[in-house]
């Protein structure tokens, strides 16, 4: 299957908590992107990971690409209400995936005061 599964699907936490979102597939990806999408807007790119085992940090967000390039995680430290949104992973499948992005199922995050 070429499906990218994200978990959890929904997450509601309090301000200041940490959280991790997972993105898993049975397919190998040549690269993987994380996007954040607000209602009524398009996905906004957060990061691209390319190398297996790669870790990238964007302020309080830490992104990791699995060693086998089949999975990725997004960890948010000390979440803030401004982090609320839909988080999407999307990647280019290495074999037979062509030039298209395969999107994950999304994680809806809500951070409350």
């Amino acid at each position, binding site marked *: 299957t070429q499906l990218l599964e994200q978990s959890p699907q929904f997450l509601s936490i309090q301000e200041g908590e940490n959280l991790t979102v997972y993105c898993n597939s049975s397919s190998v990806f040549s690269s993987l992107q994380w996007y954040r999408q607000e209602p009524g807007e*398009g*996905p*906004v*790119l957060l990061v691209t990971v390319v190398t297996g085992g790669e870790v990238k940090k964007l302020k309080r967000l830490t992104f990791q690409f699995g060693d086998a390039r089949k999975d990725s995680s997004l960890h948010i430290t000390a979440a803030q209400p401004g982090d609320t949104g839909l988080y999407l992973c999307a990647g280019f499948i290495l074999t037979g995936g062509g*030039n298209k992005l395969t999107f994950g*199922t999304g994680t809806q995050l809500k951070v409350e005061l």
Partner: protein
Amino acid sequence: EPEVTQTPSHQVTQMGQEVILRCVPISNHLYFYWYRQILGQKVEFLVSFYNNEISEKSEIFDDQFSVERPDGSNFTLKIRSTKLEDSAMYFCASRAPGSSQPQHFGDGTRLSIL
């Protein structure tokens, strides 16, 4: 920062009518895409376009759909005879040359078929 722009933001059309969704990709990008997102569902690939031709299309992109780059800046998606199930958000994306370059998305056009 350069961005992908899409017009209109919302299009309401009667079933059976033709619609054209417009996109202005980022100026130095060479690869262009259309995706759609039905309400409550994930983003789905429709078509990719490079060097003035379609490079890949999904099963969704049937004969009712077409894409065009009529000039050096616009990239359009035409739906010839709209159906109720075409109602969705349609996103345009573009990327720079280089296999690891990410795709940048516009804010989408909400298409409502009545």
